[in-house]
């Protein structure tokens, strides 16, 4: 064990008087230590992702989301079962004995392995047919695919001086864990959250924006929110902020995003959504991304209903000029899915 660094009498007295308060103080100091470590560059933003990717590389195809073709290559490679077992031996007579046994048993083992190989080949052929059908279906679906929503930033409403920043910070003040800001841009809001004493990091699919950001004390990564959430542990987040993210989403993408957040957000965690209203979205001076997006903004009332149906307690706050709004929602202990399926936790 390393040399003790926290052994002062004063510390011991404080712990003896109120152990719970001392542990709480330690947790706060650990959070500060992590912040300082990140700020010093000891833990580059890419590092954790690289560690995760390295483990995924060793995981089965189903875990790392590999495709059917890759799985079929493995099936094909394992289809033939070789009845001629190796006979090498470290003992002098071992190889001869093994070879004799192999010769005697080959008629039996060969008959069994031949049938197993035939069975495996039949399964492999069937899987290839399924793969061909799936590829054809994918080709047809691709032609009708609804594109993912782009990040659409309205410069006046997604900026450091925006009216909703303070209410968002207040809502996140007691987040039970790290806060994720999706579409974080250069990290302006992440810095504000960190400055308020809450550990936070940001992701943004616009790599040039993230690359150009001054990292300093903040942890920013160039990732899409849905892909990023796949790598986050269940209940691993204390808060999520979505800005310039959800307005243009189609129903399916929005549903997937909310489902992913629902499992990654810890009980009591906070979801903050900033969105422009439909008038702003459809205005003549709206960013061109608004035209290209597959969906359109939901009304604040709809967000509240949607989130409450998903196990949150939600409130909406309109902006001063009615052009945008903020929704804050706190996740309950159990998701509705968990409440419906009590055996599944």
């Amino acid at each position, binding site marked *: 064990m390393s040399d*003790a660094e926290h052994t002062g009498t004063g510390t011991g007295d404080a712990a003896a008087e109120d152990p719970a308060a001392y542990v709480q103080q330690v947790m706060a100091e650990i959070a500060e230590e992590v912040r300082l*470590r990140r700020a010093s560059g000891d833990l580059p933003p890419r590092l954790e992702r690289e*560690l995760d990717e390295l*483990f995924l590389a060793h995981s*089965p195809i*189903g875990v790392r989301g590999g495709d059917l073709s890759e799985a079929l290559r493995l099936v094909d490679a394992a289809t033939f079962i070789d009845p001629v077992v190796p006979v090498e031996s470290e003992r002098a007579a071992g190889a001869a004995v093994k070879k004799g046994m192999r010769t005697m048993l080959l008629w039996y083992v060969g008959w069994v392995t031949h049938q197993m190989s035939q069975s495996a080949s039949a399964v492999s052929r069937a899987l290839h047919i399924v793969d061909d059908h799936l590829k054809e279906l994918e080709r047809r679906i691709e032609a009708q695919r609804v594109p993912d929503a782009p990040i659409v930033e309205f410069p006046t409403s997604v900026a450091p001086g925006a009216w909703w920043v303070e209410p968002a910070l207040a809502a996140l003040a007691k987040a039970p864990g790290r806060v994720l800001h999706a579409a974080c841009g250069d990290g302006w809001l992440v810095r504000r959250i960190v400055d308020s004493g809450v550990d936070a990091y940001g992701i943004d699919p616009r790599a040039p924006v993230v690359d150009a950001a001054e990292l300093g004390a903040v942890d920013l990564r160039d990732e899409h929110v849905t892909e990023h959430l796949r790598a986050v*542990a269940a*209940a691993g987040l*204390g808060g999520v902020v979505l800005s310039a993210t959800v307005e243009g989403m189609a129903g399916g993408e929005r549903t997937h995003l909310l489902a992913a957040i629902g499992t990654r957000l810890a009980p009591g965690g906070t979801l903050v959504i900033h969105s422009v209203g439909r008038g702003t979205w459809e205005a003549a001076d709206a960013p061109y991304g608004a035209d290209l997006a597959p969906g359109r903004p939901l009304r604040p009332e709809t967000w509240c209903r949607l989130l409450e149906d998903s196990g949150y307690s939600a409130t909406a706050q309109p902006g001063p000029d009615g052009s945008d709004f903020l929704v804050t929602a706190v996740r309950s202990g159990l998701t509705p899915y968990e409440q419906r399926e009590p055996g599944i*936790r």
Partner: protein
Amino acid sequence: MTTAAGRPVAVHQFLPALNPHDATGTHTLKLRDVLRAAGWRSDIFAEAVHEDLAAEAYKHWAYPEHAADGDVAVYQFTTSSAVAPFLAEQGLPLILDFHNFTSPELFAGWEPGNVTRAALAADDLALLAPEAILGLARSAYSEQTLRHAGCRRTTVTPALADYARVTANPDPRVAAELRERRAADGGADILFVGRVVPSKAQHELVKALWTYRRLYDPVARLHLVGGTSSYAYSKALYDYVEDLGLASAVRLTGEVSDAALAAYYEQADVFLSLSVHEGFGVPLVEAMTAGLPIVARGAGAGAVTQTVRDAALVLESGDPAYVAAALHRVCTDDVLRRTLADNGRHRAAELQGEKVGHEFVEAIAGVVGRP
């Protein structure tokens, strides 16, 4: 309550498998002794019985030969089993002693067989819970699962375990080896005890060790004690350890004897759990009994926070930066170590001893009457 023949009511136990050195097996044998001491007749019936315990139990299908009026069944629910539909057919007053089970999605992609088994366990629970006259859960977390499954009357009772095994007679050879390695290299010894399966997230422990070594203690070691029921996960874990250059720092021991386990608890500096599913967490109580400070993931980890209460640094996630900082603090702050160890011994005392057996007797007597 007695039968017409004047014999005390029998409270028999049923379970999927009775194994030695297994939390459920130990619990079942101890509960049998508690029930008999209270005056009930009590035998054990299992789908599978380990040969070392052949004299302790009957096969479940042999129960009709032993059946008598007034019998009550206690089902040790751990996984899917032919015992569940068998009990449903018997129509006995049923008490579910619920140890929880790993949910199917935690095995998804790793072990198709385990996914199916876990899904069938959910079906078994849905079959039995609404019929049970009482549900005994290891934790409030598991109690919630029981209630959602339709169990109308529930209570929380800790596991009956042999915690003395983690302090009695540490294997001197294992202890000496651990001591000598630390004397030679320095660095902290981090311990986790549990089966090597995806839900215990040993890969996150390895990730945390790598980060801890990078930031604080370049020669720290991780000991992963426990067998496996997932070859795919174990292999991925081995390969991950190799790729990170941690082969000499991470030891996967497999199953160990009680004495070796005691040596690991004795020699470790900290117990680290980043498990994402614990119905109770017997190793957490073992660590507390051994006076070992604990760092654990709390959110999304099932009953961990309920089991450890104030005896651990409970983290909201497995974020390696936080885990590394917490490990560093526990390994360098004597006051914190003492505080956590004291809290742990106190908490462990609440979860063991004769009073736990008494809680079972009271709970069961509350629904079937006293023997």
